């Protein structure tokens, strides 16, 4: 960051109208994709095509014949499992992001106020934590507790908390250097009020976008943990575990090895697109970039 965002020239090639259209298209496509999965999760609470442990369909039946996508190796309806799996995916995403936000924002604000060696130590600590893959931390935590969805969510949230904390620290430091914060301080506003009134409102848009991205990463991390057998235990139909179970029969029954992956990708792309669209809407300074 060498140039303050405000000083950046507006991109000449992009007409404002076209930019707005693209932005709303991104947001709309994202909402549709993520909304589809969310709809699946909501419907699954009210109605399921088959009972979750109904094995009457016969093992590894192909798509059609009463089973939209066929059955798994125990004869359970695949589509029913996909529906209940959407609850786990969304729940894991939301839970992890909540943990990450609570931990990361608190730690980040504290680190931003730290000075000198304490600042160096804290940011180095966060750097090390970030370099450790989420999955590794998660494996340690799952070993300490047991393989449940809660352990997985806690572990993913902790790992992501470090990322959120580092981002928060950078954002808050930038706001703290602004003249209006100095003005607020010299006019006698207390630190807590400065943080709540000036700092958080200014860092919130960027944080919200990052948290949306973390949601997608959390969904992928939970799927990875479940694939390794460290997520929600059976008979919970986590998409990651469904993929792991279907791996051996990929060529004979491809539906089971493809469908959960497709839904995972749709959900994560949907949320990422929402994040991109949100950033363009919330944060005018980065509007011209769309990474």
């Amino acid at each position: 960051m060498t140039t303050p965002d405000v000083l950046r020239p507006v991109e000449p090639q992009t007409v404002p109208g076209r930019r707005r259209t693209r932005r709303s298209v991104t947001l709309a496509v994202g909402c549709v994709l993520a909304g589809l999965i969310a709809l699946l999760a909501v419907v699954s609470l009210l109605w399921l095509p088959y009972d979750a442990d109904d094995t009457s369909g016969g093992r590894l039946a192909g798509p059609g014949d009463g089973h939209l996508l066929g059955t798994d190796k125990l004869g359970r309806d695949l589509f029913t499992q996909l529906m209940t799996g959407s609850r786990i995916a969304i729940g894991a995403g939301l839970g992890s992001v909540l943990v990450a936000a609570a931990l990361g924002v608190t730690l980040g604000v504290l680190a931003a106020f730290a000075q000198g060696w304490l600042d160096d130590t804290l940011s180095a600590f966060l750097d090390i934590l970030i370099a450790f893959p989420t999955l590794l931390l998660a494996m340690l935590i799952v070993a300490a507790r047991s393989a449940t969805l809660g352990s997985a969510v806690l572990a993913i949230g902790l790992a992501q908390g470090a990322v959120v904390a580092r981002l928060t620290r950078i954002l808050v430091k930038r706001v703290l250097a602004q003249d209006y914060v100095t003005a607020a301080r010299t006019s006698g506003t207390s630190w807590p009020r400065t943080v709540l009134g000036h700092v958080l409102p200014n860092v919130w848009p960027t944080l919200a976008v990052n948290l949306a991205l973390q949601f997608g990463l959390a969904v992928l991390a939970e799927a990875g943990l479940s694939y390794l057998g460290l997520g929600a235990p059976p008979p919970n139909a986590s998409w990651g575990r469904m993929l792991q179970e279907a791996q051996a029969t990929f060529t004979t029954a491809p539906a089971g090895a493809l469908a959960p992956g497709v839904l995972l990708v749709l959900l994560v792309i949907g949320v990422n697109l929402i994040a991109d669209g949100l950033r363009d809407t919330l944060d005018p300074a980065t509007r011209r970039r769309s990474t």
Partner: protein
Amino acid sequence: MARYLLRRLAFLLVSLALASVVLFVLLRMLPGDPANALTSVGASPEQIAAARHSIGSDRPLPEQFTHWLGQLASGDLGTSFVSSLPVGPEVGARLNVTVPLTLAAFVLAVLVAVPAGFAAAHKRHTWYGALLSGVSQLGIAVPVFWLGMILIAVFALNAGWLPSGGFPQDGWAAPAEAVRSLVLPVVTIALVMSASLIRYVRSATLDVLGSDHLRTARALGSSFGRAMWRHGLRNASVPVISVLGIELASTLLGAVVVESVYALPGLGSLLATGIAQHDYPVVQGVLFLSTLAVLLIGFAADLVQRIVDPRLRGRLSGGAR
């Protein structure tokens, strides 16, 4: 620069010392008694106590810690509780798989992502610029293990070109087989890694493309290529280097899932079984080496950043902030 190097080196050592304390304490906080792994199910209290004594877990924590540090100082990573084999050679054997896997994937990802990310930024108003951004958007949403499954199904099970998993018993003594068994895992990691790298490279390039000094250089008559070469590349590479460092470190440790998909005997799978069996020396050894690698890579990334960007030299660590 020399003063900076000394300060940064001291910082590295302090971090390593702190990390080893944290590591040691954390592992002792895990529930479950490693002595259980050594004794049979109906073992008497005396047998369990004997097992504890044999692995030293009945001694006070500070004593265990200094013992471990002493071992480390002499290059000994300890002995596995479960297999009774020394940890060092076991880790070394695993590194023979993990290091080539990681480095090859990293190099491949950089070779793909740097030009692709630059093109995605420079040509963002053309169809292939948009396509590149779209592909990387898709790439970061694909679970790495699923990509692995699909590659196995297509290139190993259907086409039969490559093995679907495993690593030759003889290891690198059978070089052709070893390379063949690593092709799909390398491609899997490289694809996922380059998808996220493309976004960073694209964003860094966009920053530079919109900067005043590049516009000035162009206004003074430099061609685009010359302006980019003299004024653009250095600036764009600073944030990318720090991301590269993090990506390299996390791939080295994070290959667990890919190793599991392809049944490779790597560091990740050693760690996974170690954790499951409460095998402290194994977990401790692997995590200590990993921390060391993470710190060294961070050190190298900081150093390279300071060589590239003199403005950072007053700061202790990090660059993209």
